[in-house]
């Protein structure tokens, strides 16, 4: 009897631990109900340096992020793409992509950034055997996919969360870089009227 009780207790604990782990593996939602990765970071770096670093980072990530615009003097917006891979033991191929917005705001001594508006676009194998987007309109990642595709959708959310955390880590390392930031020199203008 003792053995059976212990066995069921163990199963319950394992199930609870698994449920908690899954919940931790998925991003929280913001006030709009959208999945979001949000972080405020305190650093002892002036605003101007943070600004240059943020823009440099967004502009250097050619394939991962596309720099979009600057809002005011201290907020920067980029769009990004993450390819979701279906991996089963020895085989792997892309099954879709998640498009998202990446925003950064800087102040003296701190900055905040967030990834949100995640939209999933399924891939389909085309006539040449390549995986390409099957539609141009994405499905919000927080949307309930229904029972038929629930487990697959959960996997997309888990992969996106893992990616967002890794991107955040890389971004924070870049922003904390100790090497001095040099503002790009202004382009020299050729004086034509005075000589």
């Amino acid at each position, binding site marked *: 009897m003792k053995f059976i009780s212990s066995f069921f207790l163990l199963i319950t604990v394992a199930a609870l631990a698994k449920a908690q782990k899954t919940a931790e593996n998925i991003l929280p939602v913001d006030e709009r109900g959208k999945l979001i990765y949000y972080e405020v970071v305190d650093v002892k770096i002036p605003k101007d340096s943070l600004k240059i670093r943020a823009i440099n980072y967004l502009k250097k990530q050619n394939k991962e992020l596309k720099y979009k615009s600057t809002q005011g003097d201290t907020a920067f917006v980029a769009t990004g793409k993450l390819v979701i891979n279906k991996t089963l033991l020895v085989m792997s*191929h892309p099954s879709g992509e998640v498009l998202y917005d990446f925003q950064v705001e800087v102040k003296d001594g701190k900055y905040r950034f967030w990834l949100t508006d995640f939209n999933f676009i399924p891939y389909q194998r085309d006539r*040449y*055997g390549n995986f390409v987007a099957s*539609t141009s309109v994405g499905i919000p990642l927080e949307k309930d996919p229904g029972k*038929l*595709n629930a487990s697959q959708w959960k996997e997309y959310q888990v992969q996106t969360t893992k990616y967002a955390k890794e991107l955040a880590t890389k971004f924070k390392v870049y922003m904390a870089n100790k090497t001095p930031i040099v503002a790009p020199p202004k382009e020299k203008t050729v004086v034509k009227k005075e000589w």
Partner: protein
Amino acid sequence: MKIKSLLSVLALGLGTTAYAQDATPLQISGSVDTYYKYDFSKVGNIKTSFASEQNSVSLGMIDLALKKTTGKASFVGELSFGPRGQAQSIPNAAGAYDETDNSFHIQNLYINYAFSDKFSMTAGYMGTFIGYEVISPVGNFNYSTSYLFTNGPFQNAGIKATYVFSDKVSLMAGLFNDWNAYQDFNGVSHIGAQLMIAPVKGWTAYLNVLSGYAAGAAGTGTILDLTTAYQITDKFKLGLNAADYSVSDDNGGYTGAALYPQYAFTPAVSLGLRGEYFKYKGVAAAPDASVTSITLSGNIKAGGLTFIPEVRFDNDKDFTQSFVKSSLAPAKSASQFSLAAVYAF
């Protein structure tokens, strides 16, 4: 000693893997499909490609594709086995179209080299760039295929260059073998081109041309093709395929158009219609003949699995399709129901 050798081989393998930094993992993908079809005249009337067997739980094919990219070079090799990918496709492994010779069918076998982000060249045997529908059931919304698909090329072997001007415009031009031929017995005899334009988000159009003199043909065949699809809202998509094929010196050909409206009720459940008009051009003084067809299909997806229930009505006013009633008397129309299961991995 044996363990030592094994470890050495393993270390060598790991070293090689680590060295090949620009290589992406080998992609393995494919599909399996099966179907049941019932023609309401109790005879397999509709003769477009595939899904042709009456009142039988029949096989489509197993399709296996490999893709590997290393740096700027990549290859795709795709083979299929089963009726859809063997005798019902052209050609088979022997390079001939023979219903009795069941071997395997090459869907794609080509090598690509991307000289830059904008310019690439491809050589080998490729799915055709002409038309809306493809051999693989994974690439089509409807399970049965159109007259435009059945009468057009399935694949083209050749060498082609593609230049991407922007996200909205690209151009492909190439030299090709005869349609559906691994080897061209009268030399590389076709030229082809494709202009891709994407005027607005969600709308893509392909203008295609393929022209050449096939071995043993009566004249030079030229096909002009427009294939376009527009995702108008997140739920509604509209596709269109229009094509004209002419063989010189009044040696026949075809012309036709098909419209593909599709509505997604949820990401997993959608409904689509195909309405098609198709005309065979008469050779010399022979009259033209036309066929119309309406196909209504559902797509119900669960993971990699898609169920495709489908009803289809064809009208053959010129009696060219040999439709018959259940009494075997000639008929102008034919109708069928089918249910297909397609699993993509």
